[in-house]
Each structure stands twice: as C-alpha cells, then as structure tokens.
C-alpha cells in the first residue's frame, strides 16, 4: 500500500506468472515437532510458518480460568531473521493484533466446553515472511489443533485477496502487497461459507469487495482440501 509506480500486471499475468485467481504453491507437513501436542509446517510461496499446539492443560493463574470452558490462546511471532530488516524479538503492536484476530478466527470451530478450567495454547512462528503470514499461520494452526486432537467442528482456512493495478486478485505476494491498492485477509469455515476473520487495508469499492470475497471463498475451499489431505496422510502413516 506504500508506493506507486511499479507495474504489477503485464499481459494479464502477475509478476510471478500467476493468474488473478491463483494461489502460490502450498506445502503442508503435519506432526513435525516432538515436544508439542500437535504441530504443522506450512509453506505458502516464500512464507514458511510453523504452528504448535499445547493443551488442553491447566491454566495459570487460576483466577483467569473459565469454569465452563477452555480458554484459547494464540501467539503469532516472527523470527528475527524472517524479514529483510532484522525484527527485534518480542511482541509489537502488529503481532498483538494478529494474535487476537487469529485467535478469533479459530474460536468458532473449537469445542471448548469439553475442557473447562484449561487453556489451549497455539504458538505460530514465522520463519520466513513474504506477505500472507497471518493467513498461513491460521492455516497451520488449524491443522496443528486437529493434530493435537482438540475437538473441532471443522477446519478453518485462510487466504488474502487484494487489489493491484485496479484488479482484484488472490493471495498477494510481498511486492504486490507493497505496491498494491488494497489487501483483505480472510479466514473462513470453507464448507459453511462462514467468515471467522476479516480485515481490510487500503481502498476498494463494494463491488470489488464482493468479487474479492468470492475469490477468497474458492481459494479457502482449495486450501481446506489440502489441509484435509495432509491430515489424512499423517494418520494413515501412524
């Protein structure tokens, strides 16, 4: 959203050769960590993220416990070397906001009533960042929660759409994000057309919004299938 003057679409194709409705390559690995109760490694183009789930486990301090259900926590964190200019370790405002939005993206599918007084911790580490880390993190976390055996109504899938050179396109990469006109990360329960997270930066018309929403819904369906396949493979191995 910062600068103009770069042509992001040439001959109907994006700079990395993708069509407007095309996702970057996705790679999913389930159960990659030993200590965590559940884990997932997720690649989306040059984004590399890993999610771990711990719990349900006893919650501290006690007065923060919920007597009726488990408390879900989510921590999005960038490795210092994941970006061009080294990121200082520790939470900043951006990561605090993303953590909140991502937690709310996942809460609708988790059956928290099964484990009162406990907490379920989701930790997402961004190892390499190239625009789209929050959506990659939600996708990874959703699979890691399933891998941890947390009871869930469904999986959550997430992707961003945006506007570049006046066109609504799917899954912006870093250059498109920097020089584009709008970015809209979305998370949804793909099989129910239910949106669990939605943010928008930049500027777009209502029609562009609607078009973007449709693109995102289709893409989330695709991502859902990949998540499901990865989980099935994992359990057929075991």
């Amino acid at each position: 959203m910062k600068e103009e003057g770069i042509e992001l679409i040439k001959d109907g194709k994006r700079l990395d050769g993708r069509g407007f409705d095309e996702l970057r390559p996705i790679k999913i690995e389930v159960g990659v960590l030993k200590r965590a109760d559940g884990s997932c490694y997720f690649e989306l183009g040059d984004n590399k993220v890993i999610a771990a789930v711990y719990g349900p486990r006893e919650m501290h301090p006690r007065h923060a416990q919920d007597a009726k259900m488990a408390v879900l926590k989510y921590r999005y964190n960038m490795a210092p070397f994941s970006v061009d200019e080294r990121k200082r370790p520790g939470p900043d405002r951006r990561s605090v906001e993303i953590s909140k939005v991502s937690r709310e993206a996942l809460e609708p599918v988790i059956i928290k009533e099964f484990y009162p007084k406990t907490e379920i911790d989701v930790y997402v580490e961004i190892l390499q960042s190239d625009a789209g880390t929050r959506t990659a993190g939600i996708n990874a976390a959703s699979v890691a929660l399933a891998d941890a055996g947390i009871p869930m109504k469904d999986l959550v899938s997430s992707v961003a759409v945006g506007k570049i050179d006046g066109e609504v396109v799917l899954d912006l990469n870093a250059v498109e994000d920097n020089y584009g006109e709008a970015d809209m990360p979305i998370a949804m329960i793909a099989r129910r057309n239910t949106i669990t997270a939605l943010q928008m930066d930049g500027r777009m018309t209502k029609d562009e919004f609607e078009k973007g929403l449709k693109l995102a819904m289709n893409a989330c369906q695709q991502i859902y299938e990949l998540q499901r396949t990865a989980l099935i493979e994992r359990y057929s191995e075991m």
Partner: protein
Amino acid sequence: MGLEIMDDVRRDYIYNLVRRGKREDGRGFQDYREIKVEKGIIKKAEGSARVKIGNTEVLVGVKLEPGEPFPDSPDKGVIITNAELVPLASPEFEPGPPNEDSVQLARVVDRGIRGSEAIDLSKLCIEEGEKVWIVFIDIHVLDNDGNLVDAAALGAIASLLNLRMPAERYGLSGEGEEMIPLQDKPVAVTMVDIGGEILVDPNYNEEKAAVSGLTVISNTDGTISGMQKYGREGLKEEKVSEMVEMGIEKADELRQRFL
C-alpha cells in the same frame, strides 16, 4: 462466578429484547444513539475533538512534532495512532501498557485514515529524507458504554479537520498556523449480529451480548477504506455483505451530520 451469571442474565435480556424487535434504550436496530462532536477543545493539542455517542465518551488529541521519515518514504509525514483505555473509563480497564483491545482500537482507526488517504502525507515533508511532521493521533477514552471504535474514528477525523501546524514552536520556517486540508473523511460504522439481526452502534451491554460484529470504514465516494471483524463466532457471507452495505450507508449519514 457471580459475574459470569450476570453475563448470562444480560445476554438473555438483550436477546429477548431483540427477538421482540427492541433495544435496551428504545432505539431502532439501525439507529445511532445521540451523537455530539465538539472540536478544538484542547488548546495544547494541534487538533482535538470530544465525541459522545450516548454515554460513550472519547477525547482525541492530535500533536505534530518534527521527526525522521521512514527510509522508504523520505518525503512523507508519518502517522502514529495510539489508544489509551485508561482505567477511569471502565471498571474493566486496567492501568498498564496497551493490551490487545487498545492496540486493535488504535489500529482500526489508523487503518481507516491511512486507507482513505485523508491526510496528504506529502504535505507533511519539512526536508526530504531528514525531517517530516509526525502526526500523533492519541485516543483517550473517558467513558466506555460501548462502540468505542466509531467514537474514536469520528474523534480522529474531527480532530484532523481543525489541525494546525505548530511551525513556530519548533522554529521552523514559514507557514505558521497553516491548516492541513483533508482529502477525505472516512467514517467507521460498527454493527453486531444478535440473534440474526444486525444492530448498528451497539451499546456496552449489546457489545457484551453479541458474539460477532463488523466495523466498516468508508469514504465520501462510498469506497471502503478499512474493515475489521470481531468476536468468537463466525458471520455468514451474506450477513457480511449486508453489513458492508449498511455500513457505507450509515457512514454517509454521519459524515453529513457531524463532519
């Protein structure tokens, strides 16, 4: 424990009202509470406004200070938006550094102003690559009776409407008390879903009772310049579309009446 029971009671009360087509304070589902906007009430600030939406009260002050530009935009001013949920404003707010609620409040307001390009940042350059104006938008919440976002966003844009450059104070040449013209007037409209109904401008009890909501920030030309979904439950796609449409419409009303 007692408090949790109160939460349940309140939720039931609000839902029952809505089922009967009513709201706690007698409004229609799409009505705002009474809104008051007072501009320029803090002399020490370069721009300021006090906004009341019902009992919710927010004070926004804007300060300008010379500072360094970002390396990737050497000829542009910088906007820093900050929100303080001071414990004076609610029994639930605690002293301490910004938490996820105050960070989100600040970032949603910030996103609307940035996305709409309300401020022409290139007008805030003092010396390219060396010195630009930093615009600090400070949101100070005084009384939280729900829907802080709309009040804060309205306060922010109202403050910017009477912004003066304090060039003299910093010994900077020229334009003295020059006003900074705004390019747009983004307005935030927040809605919640309660039992399938869309309620505009939720008060505190409605906010607590609702499980999902959406803020839509839109501009003079009807384009959207920011959105944020809230809450621990999802929203159906068609409900989101409906809210976006309603948000744009209500924003237009507010803009004409108060800005």
